[in-house]
Every structure is written in structure tokens, then in C-alpha cells.
């Protein structure tokens, strides 16, 4: 065994230790621990055949920064003046990118080639504390603030105890292929499913049993050297392929839907087909009829594809990573964002250039004071970890995060919702081949590219932590490696443009089983040699190799005569590629391990054999009333309280951590204006440096209205996403117009368990009815605006259970929209631009305070939920499109949380000016005028010169409110009576300090 060296790097005392200061500060703030001074250091544990002299050279001239660090080799920092230390190392098998980078640097300095695919240098943090903090407090500090027991190993103690821990993976098990008889009784079948963590129900297990009893199956198996019992590999593949995650069994179920309000009683044959796919089909036909077929590919690949112009197409995907983020917020979110990068990267042939990221995060209250359930992480910790994951995932990959949203509701304190999205641009053709089409012929090679395979993510979160000892690798969580993926994506962009890749797909959920299983349908079969797959460490079982969810891997389809070129190019990019098998036309998925057959599955059965689910849904409108408000609130205090409230206050402390302008083309960033305080509606990015064409991107999400009516929550979210793009200057699609810009939507449903069970889920039928109504709204909205879904995802079990306690998310749908902008120089931002400009309210305010932030402040829910008036909105948005095109508008901001009052405040906050308005000339009393959250509305400002033409265009849809002032105050009157006079400074102060971390 090679020798083990410990190298410690520590800041010289003359250099400010920002990391140590933060640890001290956080320990005090969140754990009330008085640690005294904290000093941070880094530990490198090297397990390689190198001499002590070589280690010294490496430590002193490579690892150490001579300007600020001291180095200790084989000894440790003497720690004078410190009483305790805390080691935070990684557990065996956990991604340790920094260790791998150190291996590369060691190879550079010694001019020797070390494998950089197998971990041989491990990194850790070692902190020193001035005060003799109790052992258990230090461990708490490690587990709850600085690390995570799922991925970290902690040691606390006196400073003079040396560190000896090395996280190498040791597994004794020999690889074997087990056969598992399935000719069992029903209860035994269920037990088998649960023991193997297959998550298959009785129907599904029986279907599998019947398959293996089929005569044709038995004889084919015999011929292939397999007996009549399925192998572990086969059952695992079926479990993975038939999982809810991959087959969307509930969205494809037969649903018996009863609406007690209308008496409607019907069978819905798949939510997906009935509402989502059908709406897109209708829209597609309308455009095709007009000779404008810009919908190139929908629902069938990793991401939807739409045509931008004659040269290129736009590809994007938004999906969730909720459960992993609940367990390990940092790793979960990081893997979420880096994982969704691979969807557009592996769409069609592959190798699209990634354009931007977006994300929407739903958390519990970060100041949640209550007790936590066992296993539940504090919402603040989830928030900071998730934000850091999104930060590293985007920033380190060089992809700008141009738009996002954060929502707080304590029902997200069990499971957060973490939606991550990535868009990309691909040429329409590589050579003469259309890029968005996947083609595969028998004989094409299967090449795995990128990271190696370990136990990461096998069975995802269900893996029991009890079965793990200190030297077994963690399988429940994955930590992404942005640098591995960046190299791989650079390589794919190059390889695809050289015509070396026939097509590709990503390895995400389900790993090779999912990627190869799906691709095999194109050629009609595949053969894989599992022993060829490169591993992070030895000891994986054949089935584990096939279903592992180790990150940063793509599956490439390469024609045999291109394999050598692909390998040469990969070497240049430092990407590992391995030929692991080939596609066939046999109709089967065949696996081998060291020449032994490991699986033989009929492809048709694998993909189409899963039995359908039958579910029950009953809609009954909740019995809700409007509250009786007795006293009128103080308007100024109410506005300031709203501005400082969690769902309205500035997201600056999150936004600035994300690089929103790498690539140099972001035109509307999340915060604009001279001081960078003006919150914006949609993000806008230029497509390239050679034209002014761009994309606007927005996110609509309004779970709060779902408590009153899930239909309106869904319709409202859709409207919010549309109006944000309209607000910056987007143009609605028009089937009559050949030059109509594309719009492309990702829908993401995240709901609590909606399958009725009299004991565990007694209101399951109502929850499913909410989901049905959300889908009905999707259909109605999409077909009204001609804005199609192009891709989407559902996440069906967002409940956190511990014993009898259940924290369930509110039913939530996110609509992420992207639309083409013809010339980004014409877009409009939200802040008021010039004193004297006239201010208008565009759209109609209704008495719709139900679910509003105003009611939330007072502790009410209400009943009058905002409704989208579709035909009205459609017409209004067309008029707004004309107002933008004609250049009438100096500013435009959509109305959302907090209504008109908050929108006006935000327009003032962003710029150097103020506003004086009278909101009293509508039909409503003061409170709904100010705080109602009716949809489809904007606050715009119009230069005097355009006022007449603007008023003529909008007519009664625009109501004059007042003018932009040259002093930074917001003055609001109601029918001539002054009701509010508040300075911009006061508003800014509250708004900017609502969420600081």
C-alpha cells in the first residue's frame, strides 16, 4: 500500500481569515456558541507512491500560496492560543474535485502521469477554536452548519491529537449475478419489491412474474444462457424503467374525475395526453396551417426544440431536484443544475451550446422558530445550501443565471422545491444532418463519456443509512463536479461540430439503464459489457454499475469508424471515454459481465409493459369566506411591511451570488438601474454577438392561490409568466403571422401524494382533483395564447413523513417561458426613467384580495381568488405589444405579489426618481385598489410626447394615475385625498433588509 502523507495549509497570522470569521459569526448567530477566535486550514491527505522529497516540493511550491500560507508536512499547525479543533473530512466515495485537481497539479510538477480518475488525494477542512468548546457542540457545529453527516466525517477534540482519518473506499464483496425467483405469492412479491427497493406495486410485480413465465421468453432466455428466473440486474432495470420518475405513471393514469360543483363525471385518459400534449398539438396545427412550423420537437427527447431562425434552434429544459435537496441541500441543488445542463446538451445529436440557467426555489420560513422533526433540516440551512449549490453549479460552468424566483411558505419546510433550468442553442444542421433528430443503426458503438461510476445515487434517497459503515461509500447523495462536466461539454460541442457524434443522451436518473434503455428503442436493441465500464473504486455489483446515477456522464452513439477520432479528441479535453457496447436490432436489451449474461429483456415489454394506474379524483370547492375587516390599516405601515415581507423583499443577497452576465450577452439582468436595485420581470439575453436577436425568459408560480382554487393558481401562474415577457417587450405568438416569434414553455408540477388511501392519504381524491384542475387551466391558457408546452416534468410525492406527522407541499405548478425577442435594444425595464413621464395602470383591477400578500400579512386567506380573464388578457397583451413596438413606453412593470402599491414602490425603488399618483378613479375602494392581486396588469410610464397616442391605443384599458416626480418619494392619493407619502430611502431600507444572509 502506498504511503500516506498529511499536508496542512494554514493562513499566516498577518492575513485576514475570512473563512474563520464566518465560522465564528455563524456559530454565534445560529447555534449561540461562543467559540472565540476561529482559524481555518486545509488538509491534503496524499496516498500515492511518491518520495518525501517529492511531497515537500509539491506541498511548498504547488499547494502553498507563498504570499499568504504556511505549510506543515507530516506535522500539524502548533495551534498556540487555541483549545479545540474540528476536522470536517469527506466520507469514502464522496466526490472530491479538489483532491483530483491536486493530483493533476502533482503530475504537472513531477512530470509524471497519475490517474486523475481515481481518488488518491483527499481534502478536508480543519478548524481551530480559541475557547474549549464542548465536544458535542463542535460536532453539532459540523453537522448542522459546516457539513452534513451524509457526506462528511467529523472529528472534534483537543488541538494536539493528530489526524489519522483517510476516507478510502474498502469493499470486500465479489461481483456476482444473482437470480431471483418471482413465482411467488402476492404478498411475497410485494415483500420482494420492498426488500429490493424497487418501488413497484403488486400489479407491476405480477406483470413481471407473468413475463418471465411466457414460453417465448423462457426459450429466448435459455438460448442466451439464462434460466427462467430473472437476474438481479433485470429486476433492477425494470424497477428503474417503470419508476414514477421515468414513466410518469400518475400523469398517464386513467383518472375517474368527479366535479361536485358541476356534476361532471368523466374518465380522463391520461392528464398528459388530455391536457398537455393535446394543447401543444392544437397549437402546432394552427401554426402549421399558416406555414410556420417552428415547433421542431416536443416531449420526446431530453428537452423540447424550437426553431429560432434559419440557422439555429433553441432547446431548453426545466426540472426539479427536490428530494436530494432535502437531504443534502448543497449537493442536491448542485446536481440539479449541473444535471439539467445535460438535458439540452444531450438533445438530438447533442453538443448544443448552453445559453443560460434559471431557477425557482421554494423554501420554508428561514427564521422558522419551531422544533424540527428528526431528519428534517432547518429551512435556513436548506436555503443557504441550495443557493450555494446553484451558485457553484452555474458559476463554475460559465453559464449565466439570468432569471429566477424564490417563494417562502412553511409547507416547503419538509421538502423544498428546487426547479433548475438550462437553455441552449444548436445549429439547425451539422453538415447536412438535422441536429434535433436522433438516429441510430445496429452496429453503432455505445461510448460512455465523462465521470466514472460509483455507488452514487443507487436507489436515490430510499437507501437506508443503517446499512452503511464508515468505509462504505455513500449512495444516497451525489455531489456534482462542475469542472468534469465543463470539460465534457466543451468536448461535446467540438465533437458534434466535427460530425463525430451520431447522437447522444445524458445519464441522469437511472444512469446507463435509462440512457441506453431509451436509445435502444431507436435501433431496436443494445448489448452492453458492464465490466468495461470504468469505476471510481472496485467492488460494484453488475446491476449497480447499470443503474448507478453517478454524475457528469453522457452516453454517446458513435459510428465504428469514428471511434478513434472521438477518443483522440476526448484526450485533448481531458475527458474519459469508454466503449462499453453496441446497438443492435435484436429487439432485446442484453447485458454481460465478464462474458456472463446478466440480462436479456424484451425492449417492447421494458418500455410498454408497465400496467396503467387507475386513480380517483373528486373536486369540491373549499368552503371559504372573505374576512370581515373592521378597522382600516395604516397604509404606510402596511406598504413598508409588505416591502419587507419574505415573499416581496429584495432577493439581492441571493441574486448577486449568481453570475448573471458571463458570456457578456445578458441585457436585462435580475436587478437593473444605476445602483442595481431595480427588480425586473423577465430576463433578456442576446443570442450571439453578431445579431440583436435575443430571448426573454420568465417564471410563473403561484401556489398560494391553490388553497382557494388550484385552477386559478395554475392559470395565474401561466398568466404571470406571459405578462412578465409582455412587460419587457415580448410579442405574443400569432398563427396568422409568418414571422411570429417562438414561445416555448416548460411545465413542472410538484404536488403532494395525490393517490387516495383511506389511512395514509384520506384527502387524496381532493388533491388529485386539484392536479386535474391545474391541468385544465394549463390547457385553457395555452390554447388561448397559442403558447405551447415543449417539455416538462412532474414530481408527485412531495411529502416529508416522520411517523404520523406529514409536511406536504401545496400543489404547485411552475411555468417557465422563453420567447424570442427580435431586437433586444427595444426592450423596456421596470424602473421609472424620467420626471414628468405619465404613469398608467394597464389592465383591470378587481376585488380579488383572496390569497393576497395583504391578507397574508393580516393572517387571512379569503375567498375571492384572482381569476384570469383570458380573452381580455389576450387582447390587452396584443395592445401592449403594439405600445412596445411603437416605443410608447419608458418603463413597464407587471403587477404581482402586493398589487399596485408594491408595483409602484418597486418602480420608484429602482431609479433615482419618485412618483405622485391618485389611485382613486377606478371602481373599487382603496384597499383592493392598492393591494388586490388581479392578474394581467402593468404599471407603465409614458413620455408626454406619446401620451395621446398611447391613450388612443389602450383606451379604457389604461388608467392615468399620475406622474414621475423629480424627488425620490412615493405619494399616493385616493380621489384627491392624500393617503401616503413615503421616501424612497424608507422603502429601500425595508425592501433590501427583508432577506439577508
Amino acid at each position: 500500500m502506498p504511503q500516506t502523507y498529511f499536508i496542512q495549509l494554514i493562513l499566516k497570522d498577518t492575513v485576514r481569515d475570512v473563512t474563520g470569521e464566518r465560522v465564528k459569526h455563524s456559530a454565534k448567530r445560529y447555534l449561540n456558541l461562543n467559540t472565540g477566535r476561529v482559524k481555518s486550514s486545509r488538509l491534503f491527505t496524499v496516498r500515492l507512491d511518491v518520495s518525501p522529497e517529492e511531497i515537500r516540493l509539491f506541498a511548498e511550491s504547488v499547494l502553498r500560496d507563498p504570499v499568504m500560507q504556511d505549510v506543515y508536512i507530516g506535522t500539524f499547525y502548533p495551534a498556540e492560543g487555541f483549545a479545540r479543533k474540528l476536522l470536517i473530512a469527506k466520507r469514502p466515495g464522496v466526490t472530491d474535485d479538489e483532491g483530483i485537481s491536486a493530483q493533476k497539479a502533482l503530475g504537472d510538477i513531477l512530470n509524471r502521469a497519475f490517474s486523475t480518475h481515481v481518488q488518491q488525494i483527499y481534502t478536508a477542512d480543519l478548524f481551530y477554536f480559541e475557547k474549549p468548546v464542548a465536544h458535542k457542540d463542535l460536532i453539532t457545529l459540523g453537522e448542522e452548519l459546516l457539513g452534513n453527516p451524509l457526506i462528511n466525517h467529523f472529528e472534534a477534540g483537543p488541538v494536539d491529537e493528530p489526524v489519522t482519518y483517510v476516507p478510502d473506499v474498502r469493499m470486500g464483496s465479489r461481483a456476482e449475478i444473482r437470480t431471483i425467483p418471482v413465482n411467488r405469492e402476492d404478498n411475497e412479491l410485494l415483500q420482494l419489491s420492498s426488500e429490493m427497493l424497487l418501488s413497484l406495486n403488486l400489479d407491476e410485480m405480477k406483470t413481471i412474474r407473468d413475463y418471465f413465465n411466457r414460453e417465448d421468453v423462457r426459450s429466448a432466455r435459455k438460448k442466451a444462457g439464462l434460466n427462467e428466473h430473472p437476474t438481479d440486474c433485470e429486476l433492477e432495470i425494470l424497477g428503474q424503467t417503470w419508476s414514477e420518475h421515468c414513466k410518469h405513471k400518475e400523469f398517464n393514469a386513467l383518472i375517474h374525475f368527479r366535479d361536485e360543483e358541476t356534476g361532471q363525471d368523466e374518465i380522463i385518459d391520461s392528464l398528459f395526453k388530455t391536457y398537455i400534449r393535446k394543447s401543444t398539438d392544437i397549437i402546432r396545427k394552427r401554426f402549421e396551417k399558416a406555414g410556420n412550423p417552428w415547433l421542431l420537437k416536443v416531449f420526446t427527447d431530453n428537452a423540447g426544440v424550437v426553431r429560432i431562425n434559419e440557422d439555429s434552434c433553441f432547446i431548453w429544459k426545466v426540472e426539479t431536484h427536490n428530494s436530494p435537496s432535502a437531504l443534502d441541500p448543497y449537493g442536491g441543488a448542485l446536481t440539479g443544475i449541473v444535471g439539467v445542463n445535460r438535458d439540452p446538451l444531450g438533445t438530438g445529436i447533442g453538443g448544443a451550446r448552453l445559453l443560460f440557467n434559471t431557477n425557482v426555489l421554494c423554501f420554508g420560513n428561514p427564521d422558522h422558530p419551531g422544533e424540527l422533526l428528526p431528519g428534517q433540516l432547518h429551512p435556513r440551512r436548506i436555503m443557504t445550501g441550495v443557493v450555494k449549490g446553484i451558485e457553484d453549479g452555474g458559476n463554475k460552468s460559465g453559464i449565466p443565471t439570468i432569471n429566477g424566483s424564490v417563494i417562502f411558505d412553511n409547507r416547503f419546510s419538509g421538502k423544498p422545491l428546487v426547479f433548475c433550468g438550462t437553455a441552449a442553442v444548436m445549429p439547425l444542421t451539422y453538415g447536412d444532418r438535422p441536429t434535433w433528430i436522433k438516429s441510430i443503426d445496429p452496429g453503432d458503438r455505445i461510448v460512455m463519456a465523462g465521470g466514472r461510476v460509483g455507488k452514487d445515487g443507487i436507489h436515490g434517497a430510499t437507501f437506508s443509512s443503517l446499512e452503511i459503515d464508515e468505509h462504505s461509500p455513500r449512495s444516497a447523495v451525489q455531489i456534482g463536479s462542475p469542472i468534469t462536466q465543463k470539460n465534457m461539454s466543451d468536448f461535446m460541442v467540438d465533437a458534434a461540430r466535427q460530425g463525430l457524434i451520431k447522437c447522444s443522451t445524458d445519464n441522469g436518473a437511472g444512469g446507463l439503464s435509462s440512457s441506453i434503455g431509451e436509445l435502444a428503442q431507436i435501433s431496436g436493441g443494445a448489448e452492453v459489457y458492464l465490466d468495461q465500464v470504468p469505476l471510481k473504486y472496485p467492488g460494484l455489483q453488475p446491476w449497480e454499475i447499470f443503474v448507478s446515477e453517478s454524475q457528469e456522464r453522457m452516453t454517446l452513439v458513435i459510428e465504428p469508424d469514428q471511434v478513434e477520432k472521438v477518443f483522440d479528441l476526448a484526450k485533448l479535453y481531458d475527458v474519459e471515454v469508454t466503449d462499453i457496447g453496441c446497438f443492435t436490432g435484436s429487439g432485446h436489451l442484453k447485458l454481460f459481465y465478464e462474458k456472463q449474461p446478466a440480462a436479456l429483456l424484451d425492449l417492447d415489454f421494458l418500455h410498454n409493459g408497465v400496467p396503467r394506474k387507475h386513480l380517483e379524483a373528486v373536486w369540491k370547492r373549499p368552503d371559504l369566506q372573505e374576512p370581515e375587516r373592521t378597522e382600516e390599516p395604516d397604509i404606510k405601515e402596511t406598504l413598508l411591511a409588505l416591502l419587507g415581507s419574505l415573499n416581496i423583499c429584495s432577493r439581492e443577497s441571493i441574486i448577486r451570488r449568481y453570475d448573471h452576465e458571463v458570456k457578456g450577452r445578458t441585457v436585462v439582468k435580475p436587478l437593473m438601474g444605476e445602483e442595481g436595485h431595480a427588480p425586473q420581470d423577465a430576463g433578456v439575453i442576446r443570442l450571439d454577438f453578431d445579431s440583436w436577436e435575443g430571448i426573454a425568459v420568465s417564471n410563473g408560480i403561484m401556489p398560494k392561490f391553490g388553497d382557494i382554487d388550484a385552477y386559478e393558481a395554475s392559470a395565474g401562474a401561466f398568466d404571470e409568466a406571459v405578462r412578465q415577457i409582455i412587460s419587457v417587450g415580448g410579442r405574443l405568438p400569432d398563427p396568422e403571422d409568418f414571422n411570429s416569434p417562438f414561445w416555448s414553455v416548460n411545465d413542472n408540477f410538484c404536488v403532494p401524494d395525490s393517490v387516495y388511501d383511506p389511512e395514509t392519504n384520506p384527502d387524496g381524491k381532493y388533491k388529485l382533483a386539484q392536479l386535474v384542475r391545474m391541468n385544465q387551466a394549463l390547457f385553457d391558457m395555452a390554447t388561448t395564447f397559442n403558447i405551447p408546452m415543449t417539455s416538462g416534468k412532474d414530481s408527485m410525492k412531495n411529502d416529508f413523513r416522520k411517523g404520523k406527522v406529514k409536511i406536504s407541499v401545496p400543489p404547485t405548478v411552475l411555468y417557465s417561458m422563453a420567447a424570442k425577442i427580435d431586437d433586444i435594444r427595444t426592450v423596456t425595464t421596470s424602473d421609472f426613467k424620467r420626471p414628468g413621464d405619465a404613469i398608467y395602470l394597464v389592465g383591470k383591477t378587481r376585488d380579488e384580495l383572496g390569497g393576497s400578500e395583504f391578507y397574508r400579512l393580516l393572517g387571512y386567506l379569503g375567498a375571492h381568488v384572482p381569476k384570469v380573464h383570458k380573452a381580455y388578457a389576450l387582447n390587452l397583451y396584443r395592445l401592449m405589444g403594439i405600445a412596445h413596438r411603437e416605443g410608447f413606453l419608458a418603463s413597464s412593470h407587471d403587477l404581482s405579489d402586493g398589487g399596485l402599491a408594491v408595483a409602484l414602490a418597486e418602480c420608484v425603488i429602482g431609479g433615482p426618481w419618485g412618483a405622485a399618483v391618485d389611485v382613486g378613479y377606478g371602481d373599487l375602494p382603496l384597499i383592493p385598489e392598492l393591494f388586490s392581486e388581479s392578474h394581467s396588469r402593468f404599471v407603465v410610464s409614458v413620455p408626454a410626447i406619446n401620451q395621446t397616442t398611447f391613450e388612443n391605443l389602450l383606451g379604457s384599458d389604461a388608467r392615468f394615475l399620475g406622474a414621475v416626480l423629480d424627488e425620490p418619494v412615493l405619494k399616493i392619493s385616493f380621489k384627491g385625498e392624500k393617503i401616503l407619502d413615503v421616501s424612497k430611502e424608507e422603502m429601500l431600507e425595508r425592501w433590501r433588509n427583508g432577506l439577508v444572509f
Partner: protein
Amino acid sequence: MYSEKRIKDGKIRALVITGSGINCEEEMAAACRFAGAHADIVHLSRIFNGEVSIHDYDLLNLPGGFSFGDDLGSAKVLANQLKVRTIASGIPFMEELQRFLADGKYIIGVCNGFQALVKMGLLPNTSGKGEQEATLTFNDSGKFEDRWVTCKALQDHPTPFLKGIDTLDLPVRHGEGRLIFRDDAVRQAVVDRKLNVLAYADREGRITHTYPYNPNGSELNCAGLCDPSGQIFGLMPHPEAYLTAYNHPDWNRRKKTGELRDEKGEGLKIFENIVGLVARCLNTTKW
């Protein structure tokens, strides 16, 4: 000394390094292109393996990004590679760079590229020995931040990159931008020789240590350094991210009020300066 290729198309040739996590190569190449140069984006491996020679170029660009994920400290692994690796011909890469500079050519490093130049000892290099005299480490705020800052150019500095520039707004996007010098002697030498060519300033252009105008707590409020010859220039803010007026966070107000008259971004000037200078040299010299 210049290849025939360059002479043929008559354009200044800019080399933009990429690979291993560098991620601002596209906008860096666009900056060179808009300034009138021909720009090639080349993976570092192609330079080490001899496919591409830096001597075929006039301007070497080290773009921003997260080379090697910023592991071991920002740009540390990259700086080490550039310092210790030899190219295929057996010549150490550092010797190649020295020849490149001796030929009177220019190097610019932005963000991660700047961090690499500092950690390689090429900036500020007051001693001329190529030792590491400064470093860039974690911001005082303890976090990565993307925000726009105002930068003030020093008077009478030795680098042509900043010719004619007084102040300019640029975005910073880093977590490790706090510049610290090895010791007082280095700091003094930097001041004496006017190598701290770019400083963080408030909106009125007054140099300041106040956060967030100085976003990271750098000594001397330093945003950028050059070497004593002025041929090497590095900075934390991103001039290549301000190539058009539409990059600036306040562009929309300027446009709507008629203040925006030039579609060019202020960052482009740095590239125009250097490309213009090399072009003038070419026009007056027969190669």
C-alpha cells in the same frame, strides 16, 4: 517573427486560451474581434502539444472562469501548469512566454486569467525575477458577488492597455478578488512604479475602500495591475463583458432618456487600445 498567416490577412492576431474550466473565452474573442483583430480560441492542450504556437499571435488573452474549479485557490492549478509544463518541443512554456514578451507582444488576463498571472509571478513582478509577489484570495464579504463597479485609471501609468481611459464601469464576478501584497516592500514598489493601474472608485470616480464600491477589500483598492514594461495587464473586473452599451445595468434609462449615444461599451476601449497600438507598429515596420 510573425507567421505568414498573419501577414496574409493583414489583421492583428489574438490568441484566446480556453479549456479546463475557463469560461469567458467567447466574449474575450468577441472583444478582440470588435477591436479589429482576428481572434482564435484555442484549448491549452493544443499549445502544450505543439499544434498551436503562441508566436503566431500578437496578443495573448487569459480569460476569466473557474480553471480547475478554483481548486487549491483560484487559478492555482492553471498557474502551476503554465509555470512548470514544457511544450512538445521540450521548451518550457515560461521560456516561450519570455520570448513572446521579448518580441514586444502583449498579454491580458481577466479575473481568473489575472489570478493566474499574479500566481505565476508575472504580475506585478517588481523584481523582474518572476517570483510571486502578491496573491488574490477570498473577498472580505466572504462570498462570490456579481455587481458593477466604477474603476479609476491611475495617472501616468506605464501600460498602453489603459491609454485615454479615466474611469470606466465594469462588472466584477468573483469570490477571490482581494489582492494582497507579499510585504510592504512590494506594495511600495508597486506604488512607486505606478503598477497599480486600476483602482475601485465610487460613482464620482474617487478611489475608495468602502464596500461595495471596493467589492473585495483589495489592498491599494487595486482592481488591476501591470508589469513594469506595461506589456502585461491583468484585472479582476471584466472589460470583455461590457462590449456594447446594452451590458450596462443602467442602459435602459440612458436609452429612454436619449443619454445613450454610443452603442459601444466602455470595456471595448481596452482592447481597441492594444489592437490599435499593435496595428500602428505593424504599419510602421516592415516585417
